[in-house]
């Protein structure tokens, strides 16, 4: 796999044999800990070049220090986020919005969408989110002393919360999750099929809402005006695709990694169960320890960055799970301390593209943990089972079988 040539401007001594896709612990692994596995890069230089580090097999610079990632991500002029991450799968070139727009165009769309996911708006969504969590967990508790957390709780909870936000019904939840899996974790054949399916779905939804308005997200988008004009079809699609895909995988993965941690650390589990007021602070630490996302930027000009000769067009990787284990930023970064204070982690990124859904995501995790711990007694990983974890484009965990018999 790591057969890409090293670009001429990259000094050979800056190339390292590291990849979020192929390094040890990154392919699907039984009982793996991919976040701890990538943390080992901190034994090496702060910036290096990886020959194979994106889903489409490209080389990237790898920025390991949180402070350096902050510099890159705050400077959208030098480090653009427009790389057609989605449309390129289809051999096309249109941006997902607002992620792949650079300032100033970015700010206009961001201002349109921010109020829909502001802390205040999320507060209003909370009762429904909690109700959904309780409903799912009570069904699990009533049906036995074991379950597959991913299939029975994390995915249905995270994805239905999100579908409700979008104004979509729950009944196609499994189909949507399947599209997300193929898109984010699929092979070269599955990804374009999933991408095409999602685009068709979003286009059709937009057409329906144009024809008949209802009180939902897509109606808001097709009716919205930016600088006095309705959005173009490509802009509506760019927003719809991004918001749809962003909700399919990340929160479920986070809840899965968090419950796997608590299943293996009974003292922490018991602490949070007996003192649930600690859960919001603990959630920040779990966000630090187990973020699922790598952010990639493209250099818009030649720049010597902290000793790295970055040239126009180079890809620059800011993996949140690497910044979050930076010993220069966090004391004892590989120790999970649920009482950690001053925890300015990078789970939602830095700079203008800070995760638009961060406030909803964080509350979903808090609520999910609160309701789970309130209703499920001391749980462990079921004997004879092993969760499968993986690194890659979005870190994930499959089949987390818990047991509380």
């Amino acid at each position: 796999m790591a057969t890409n040539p090293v670009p001429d401007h990259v000094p050979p001594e800056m190339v390292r044999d590291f990849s979020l896709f192929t390094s040890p612990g990154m392919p699907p692994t039984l009982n793996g800990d991919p976040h701890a596995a990538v943390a080992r890069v901190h034994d090496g230089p702060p910036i290096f070049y990886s020959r194979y580090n994106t889903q489409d097999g490209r080389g990237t610079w790898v920025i390991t220090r949180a402070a350096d990632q902050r510099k890159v991500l705050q400077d959208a002029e030098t480090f653009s986020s427009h790389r057609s991450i989605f449309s390129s799968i289809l051999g096309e070139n249109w941006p997902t919005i607002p992620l792949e727009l650079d300032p100033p165009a970015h700010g206009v769309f961001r201002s349109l969408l921010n109020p829909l996911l502001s802390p205040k708006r999320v507060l209003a969504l909370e009762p429904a989110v909690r109700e959904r969590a309780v409903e799912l967990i009570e069904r699990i508790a009533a049906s036995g002393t074991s379950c597959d957390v991913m299939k029975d709780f994390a995915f249905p909870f995270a994805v239905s919360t999100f579908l409700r936000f979008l104004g979509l019904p729950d009944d196609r939840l499994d189909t949507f999750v399947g599209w997300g899996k193929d898109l984010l974790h699929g092979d070269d054949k599955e990804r374009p099929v999933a991408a095409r399916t999602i685009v068709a779905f979003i286009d059709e939804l937009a057409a329906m809402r144009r024809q008949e308005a209802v009180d939902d997200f897509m109606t808001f988008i097709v009716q919205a005006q930016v600088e006095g004009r309705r959005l173009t079809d490509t802009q509506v699609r760019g927003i719809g695709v991004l918001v749809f895909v962003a909700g399919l995988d990340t929160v479920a993965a986070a809840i899965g990694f968090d419950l796997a941690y608590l299943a293996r650390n009974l003292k922490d589990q018991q602490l949070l169960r007996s003192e649930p007021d600690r859960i919001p602070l603990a959630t920040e630490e779990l966000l630090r320890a187990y973020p699922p996302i790598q952010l990639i930027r493209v250099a818009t000009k030649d720049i010597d960055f902290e000793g790295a000769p970055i040239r126009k067009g180079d890809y620059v990787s800011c993996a949140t799970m690497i910044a979050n284990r930076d010993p220069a930023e966090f004391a004892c970064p590989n120790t999970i301390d649920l009482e950690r204070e001053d925890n300015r982690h990078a789970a939602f990124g830095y700079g203008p593209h800070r995760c638009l859904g961060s406030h909803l995501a964080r509350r979903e995790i808090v609520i999910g943990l609160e309701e789970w711990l309130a209703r499920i007694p001391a749980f462990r990983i079921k004997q004879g089972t092993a969760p499968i974890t993986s690194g890659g484009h979005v870190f994930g965990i499959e089949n987390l079988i818990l047991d509380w018999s």
Partner: protein
Amino acid sequence: MRIIVQKAKCQGHARCAAQAPDIFKLDEEGYILPSDIEVAEGEELPASRGARSCPERALELTR
């Protein structure tokens, strides 16, 4: 105590408001209001916690 707000650096993480909602006021988009903040006596602790919580380093404490 005073908090200098670098509005341009705020990206709406809202961690400051999570620490101290009465000290760090947000606009409709969830970003900090632009003016610097005079911290009332007795509110130094939550104010400094809030300022220290900013992932973007947009809030600066002065005495």
